């Protein structure tokens, strides 16, 4: 990560690095940290790919913060984490719950937000996307928000 990159991009990279630590060998339920990307990706759930599909981090919408006590320059940004995993009729919901637990756990940890002028990054919600019939994958989408000072 180059320090000249926009703060919001650096935030995406910090979240990416944080999610990359989600590995079962490190005490998590899943290995969704195996592949975490920050660019758009479309993945096939067919047999040729690993069980854990890429996790995608999107830093989406920025806006002026509504907190009257905050620095006037401060802005807030929304981020989205999409995580998928191959699943079948017998394990889809279990895997979805495990992914949510892992994302909540890792996002609760301290991350190096301060050096990039990001404050109070937090996860707001996680949702299990309804699996279409016949789909051999389950997808979880989490949203969060952070405050930052533009560079």
């Amino acid at each position, binding site marked *: 990560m180059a320090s000249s990159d926009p703060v919001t991009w650096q935030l995406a990279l910090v979240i990416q690095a944080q999610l990359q630590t989600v590995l079962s060998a490190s005490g998590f339920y899943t290995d969704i940290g195996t592949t975490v*990307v920050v660019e758009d990706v479309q993945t096939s759930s067919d047999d040729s790919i690993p069980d854990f599909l890429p996790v*995608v981090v999107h830093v989406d919408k920025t806006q002026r913060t509504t907190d009257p006590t905050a620095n006037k320059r401060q802005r807030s940004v929304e981020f*989205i984490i999409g995580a998928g995993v191959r699943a079948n009729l017998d*394990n889809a919901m279990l895997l979805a719950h495990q992914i949510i637990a892992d994302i909540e756990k890792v996002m609760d940890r301290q991350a190096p937000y301060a050096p990039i002028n990001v404050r109070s990054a937090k996860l707001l919600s996680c949702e299990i996307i309804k699996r*279409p019939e016949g*789909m051999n994958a389950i*997808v979880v*989408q989490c949203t969060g928000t952070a405050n930052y000072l533009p560079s």
Partner: protein
Amino acid sequence: MSNAGLSSIDARVMASMLRAGLADAAVYSDGVSPVNCSVMIERDTQIIGESGQVVGQKTSVVFLRAEVPKPKQRATVTVTANGEQWTLESKFFEDESISQWILNRG
């Protein structure tokens, strides 16, 4: 139309599809005893997720009820020619003659 009439037409259609290579010989199994049958498998795709879209299969199968009278959820169907195996996930059409199911390959 009588059940027998409908079944007869569907059986002839299935036989024609088999000859044309558009249907397959398969084995249906729901844990009792495997049943040899003919199936028509239709393949499509579907998408889930907004960020990080996952493209998965949407595959369905048609059974003749003369061969497999009451297909069951979670039973399997295996294509004889290539060993491809699927699990029956949900029924979405059935009449006196045929039963059509969404398959899952997870």
